[in-house]
């Protein structure tokens, strides 16, 4: 049996395309549609209803949740950026043996093979009132009473975000760094550049795609997460995603849908803007 190459491609891509369409595109469309529907207690009334939208767009609660999440995003992004860049720089430009570089990269990635929920739990014995950190601080006399805001607070949310997401920055940045030809770095040194000058004048301009991809990961992770925030803040912190999750759990689907559309548009807008700065297909092809 032989088919033309084009038909072959269609056949090969079909299962994928069908799944994507039915399970991503269509559902997203449905969310959009449902946001315009009315609702009663645990049921959707399929009539055109703008109330959800009016609520969302006029409520101060909405703005508050967005301010919270943007703050988180800014903090997490800056920390993971600096951390990710520093470690990637160390691994790519300072570690000389290929063997050790591979080991170190694996060491960075291994924690992610463990369950995410376990990694969230693991912070309890560290940050809790009787946790290690507090025990250390009280024991050495630095403070009188255990600090309560280490756990179940904005602080713990940020700490766990950084813990989980640094790799998402480190990976793309390291990938971009690895693509820089070593002779370009040597040429910079030859021209008299110090290490810092080499970083600012040569390396940073050349790894822009890595920054962009990493930032995209961070944005989608932070803006879209409700589980981590709920768990690590003890239900105290409210972000758009958390609000949506709460409404879904209360079977209030249409308002959740309206909020979802807003959040989706904002996230897609941010990512779309960033994607103008990097050509994905080119990055993958190399």
């Amino acid at each position, binding site marked *: 049996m032989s088919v033309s190459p084009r038909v072959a491609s269609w056949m090969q891509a079909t299962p994928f395309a069908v799944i994507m369409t039915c399970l991503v595109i269509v559902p997203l469309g449905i969310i959009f549609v449902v946001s315009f529907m009315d609702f009663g207690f645990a049921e959707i009334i399929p009539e055109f209803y703008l109330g959800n939208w009016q609520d969302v767009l006029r409520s101060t609660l909405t703005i508050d949740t967005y301010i919270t999440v943007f703050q988180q995003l800014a903090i997490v992004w800056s920390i993971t950026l600096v951390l990710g860049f520093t470690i990637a720089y160390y691994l790519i430009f300072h570690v000389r043996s290929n063997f050790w570089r591979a080991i170190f990269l694996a060491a960075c990635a291994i924690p992610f093979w463990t369950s995410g929920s376990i990694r969230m739990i693991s912070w309890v014995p560290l940050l809790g009132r009787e946790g290690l950190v507090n025990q250390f601080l009280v024991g050495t006399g630095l403070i009188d009473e255990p600090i309560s805001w280490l756990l179940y607070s904005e602080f713990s949310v940020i700490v766990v975000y950084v813990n989980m997401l640094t790799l998402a920055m480190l990976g793309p940045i390291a990938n971009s760094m690895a693509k820089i*030809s070593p*002779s*370009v770095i*040597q*040429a*910079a*040194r*030859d*021209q*008299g*550049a110090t290490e810092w*000058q080499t970083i600012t*004048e*040569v390396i940073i*301009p*050349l790894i822009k795609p890595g920054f962009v991809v990493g930032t995209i990961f961070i944005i989608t992770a932070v803006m879209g997460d409700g589980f981590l925030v709920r768990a690590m803040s003890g239900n105290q912190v409210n972000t758009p995603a958390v609000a949506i999750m709460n409404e879904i759990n209360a079977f209030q689907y249409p308002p959740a849908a309206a909020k979802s559309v807003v959040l989706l548009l904002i996230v897609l807008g941010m990512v779309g803007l960033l994607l103008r700065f990097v050509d994905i297909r080119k990055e993958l092809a190399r």
Partner: protein
Amino acid sequence: MKIDTDFHAKKLGPDTAAEEAADVAVKYDVELVSVSKSYDGGAKAVDTISLRIPKASYCCLLGPSGCGKTTTLRMLAGHESVTDGDVLIHNRNITDAVQAKRGTSMMFQSYALFPHLSALDNVAFSLKLKKIAKAERHAQAMEYLKLVQMDHLAHRMPAQLSGGQQQRVALARSLITRPKVLLLDEPLSALDPFLRVLMRTELRRIQTELGITFVHVTHSQEEALALSDVMVVMNSGKIMQAGSARDVFERPANAFVARFIGGHNVIERNGRTIAVRADKCRLVDSAPGPSLAATVISVEYQGPIVRINLRDEAGKDLCVLISDTRFYSDPPSVGEKVLMSWTSDDEWPLDAAA
């Protein structure tokens, strides 16, 4: 095209009067004193070499792959640490000195132009590092681009330039740092043959007009012969012979040099090893003087010269270079048994060591 050497001589940064006076008194631009390089206690890539390169000379390091010529160049540049020995530039020991203080500048085999900067910004890079203002550093960079005839393409990115053009930009970038010694790592290997000849004329011209030393690594004998004031033939980390191009060609020190430089027959007879130039050998029917019986293996037409490859009775390869007119007057055929002869005046004795 006349180069503004005055421009090049203008001071772009502080240079003490003492240094200037010392510069004038210097006889050798580069000195390598018993320099060795080994990696992690393994075999020596460069084995105790000593070399003196006179002021303002064009020096070629020539040898087969793995002979240590590139390692030597990189030790001069400071991109490779020196395991033993000293490197002096203008009588200053710069063996462990940091880049900015060495007085060398390197032109990489792959050009290594910064992909994110235009040609102009590439050349101006070292000036930017010294915090020189934009207008001024662009102006100076333009002067150097004019030097290499690339000023009309100053705003192109490296990806938009051909190989030859990239190389000129790389050259300008190396020269703007006003090095005392310019190091070139196989600069012509990536160019097509026609461009190669053009570029090497350019390099020679620039070197002469600027009056600095170029150290040029190559594996092409033709290139080395064409360019060198000082030719250094290396093998297995050691210097086989260093001298003027003519010296090395007419008076090879040993069998390796004779074979590597090409155009010589290395013959052993009566317990002596001698070299005879292939163009001084003839094919004759009978010979009064020294001669060898051989079979014609192949005939290669090369334009004004025809190269005839022979194999003697002991299985050794020989060759004879004769002019085309002489060849066509009586062409030998493949498989023919001939006699290769020469005069004893043309014999050059070689050291036993090969």
